[in-house]
């Protein structure tokens, strides 16, 4: 029993990690060795892919920075909108709440790639293209449904008496939210924030259509551009190095915030 379990665990890890480990190996393999098996083992390795990547124009860390800026901005903006909204919605009558929940749930399910054309028109109309600041707007809009679902159920978990007591103490609405209620739902806010950040960091179709300047690309678009640059000869070594560097921040995030991510995903889908 125990031995077969170890076997399954090993298989699971191999399946999950091998494609990434292959990228790691590829990133250290010289371009010649990638297309030839004749090169002896000790001459196959190189750091050239990383060197090229970091000295490119723009250097690779620029995309990481852009993605981080967009992810951070989107997270802050979405939470600023979603926390008060969820508080307001959570205090409505049960029938209204369930209507809202169904509407917001439908939006959370919506395959948002279909929205890109109309959003691109808006970007052109209001000159929001090629701005890392402006792209946080559609991102916040796209992330809001899930954020609302998560935060509404967090606020619903708090007893109403608490809010009433704070009101009797003479605390205004903002103080009640900030000083009394928000500290109690910090875990939900944290896991919502991480999911929003991941969404913005990974988003592709909107970034593809809103951003075109080389130095403003986010990571997913920069990656896809390498793929599209030449259909017949993708520079796989350089690309693998990019995958490795691009994965490191996420690896850290997932390992550190595993619990919040799991809680957010399951609560969002199940309770919403």
């Amino acid at each position, binding site marked *: 029993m125990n031995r077969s379990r170890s076997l*399954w665990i090993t298989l699971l890890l191999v399946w999950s990690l091998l494609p990434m480990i292959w990228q790691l190996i590829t990133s250290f393999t010289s371009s010649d060795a990638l297309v030839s098996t004749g090169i002896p083992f000790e001459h196959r390795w190189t750091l050239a892919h990383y060197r090229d990547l970091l000295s490119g124009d723009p250097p690779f860390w620029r995309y990481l920075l852009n993605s981080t800026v967009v992810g951070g901005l989107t997270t802050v903006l979405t939470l600023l909108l979603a926390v008060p909204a969820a508080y307001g919605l959570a205090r409505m009558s049960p029938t209204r709440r369930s209507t809202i929940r169904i509407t917001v749930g439908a939006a959370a399910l919506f395959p948002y790639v279909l929205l890109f054309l109309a959003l691109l028109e808006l970007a052109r109309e209001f000159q929001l293209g090629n701005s890392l600041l402006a792209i946080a707007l559609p991102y916040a809009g796209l992330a809001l449904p899930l954020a609302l679902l998560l935060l509404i159920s967090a606020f619903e978990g708090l007893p109403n008496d608490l809010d009433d007591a704070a009101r009797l103490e003479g605390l205004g609405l903002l103080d009640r939210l900030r000083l009394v209620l928000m500290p109690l739902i910090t875990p939900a806010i944290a896991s919502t924030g991480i999911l929003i950040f991941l969404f913005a960091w990974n988003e592709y179709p909107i970034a593809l259509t809103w951003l075109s300047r080389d130095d403003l690309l986010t990571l997913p678009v920069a990656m896809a551009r390498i793929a599209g640059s030449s259909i017949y000869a993708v520079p796989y070594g350089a690309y693998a190095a990019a995958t490795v560097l691009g994965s490191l921040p996420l690896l850290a995030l997932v390992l550190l915030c595993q619990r919040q991510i799991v809680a957010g995903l399951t609560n969002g889908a199940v309770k919403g």
Partner: protein
Amino acid sequence: MNWLLALPALLLIALVFGWPMLRYGWLSLHASSVLTGLEPVPNQGANWARLLEDPRFWQDALQTLRFGVVSVGLEMVLAFAIALLLDQRWRGRGVVRALTLLPWALPTTMMALGWRWIFNTPYGPLEQLAQAAGLSPLNLLSNPDWTWFAAVMADVWKTTPFVTLLLLAGLQTIPDDLYSAFRLEGGKTRQAITAITLPLLTPYILISLLFRTAQAAGVFDLIQVLTGGGPAGSTESIAQYAYLNAMRFLDFGYSSTVMLAGFLLLSLVIATAALLLQMSRLLRPLKS
């Protein structure tokens, strides 16, 4: 007051989700392309007539359906098995769960190109293995009969962790007592899965099906980077066709029509599934 707090968020949602649908509805009734100087001109439903007779749209719809059904199906089975494994108590379970979550957390476009390298002919590892085993070349990305399955594989790799987490959350709501009682009654472990686990897991299975079906219907990033819709259009999805119409053919009227039609088809699939489910629930008391 409560509404006021929610207003900014609800307005932004309405703008980002609601406005595009209205706009597409309007655009789909207009010709708006290079031929009209990119100005919308009413065209009496010509876009919709064209859609009904556009073999490429219907082929893409079928391909999206094939991709969705097979990958969501595989994901459900795999995720159920993995969730069962992760639901047991063993040392290092937390770390393993975090590591298996990684594929889900990475940007789709990033690992799509990673998979392109793995599927590469003749230098990718799969092709090398096939060669070493004396097989003929697999041509996973250039054989129209098989490339869609390569896309399914990459998608299953990426999204199974999401389904696993949902099912795991469901498994953790089932009290252990139920299983011990079942065993005391003389039930076998294997029977417990159909007698206890699956019935109690049903809501979680349904919700993951719903999420994954909707996501698969809009598949774009993965296919765009992995195959670009090829070979011979055999992996093109509805979202990609809409994207091509807008960004390459600059035909915004028809692109809007394709997107609306894609959305309507997805709604139809979900509504039918919901209806069937409702019917099977109504019929169940009759059977017993």
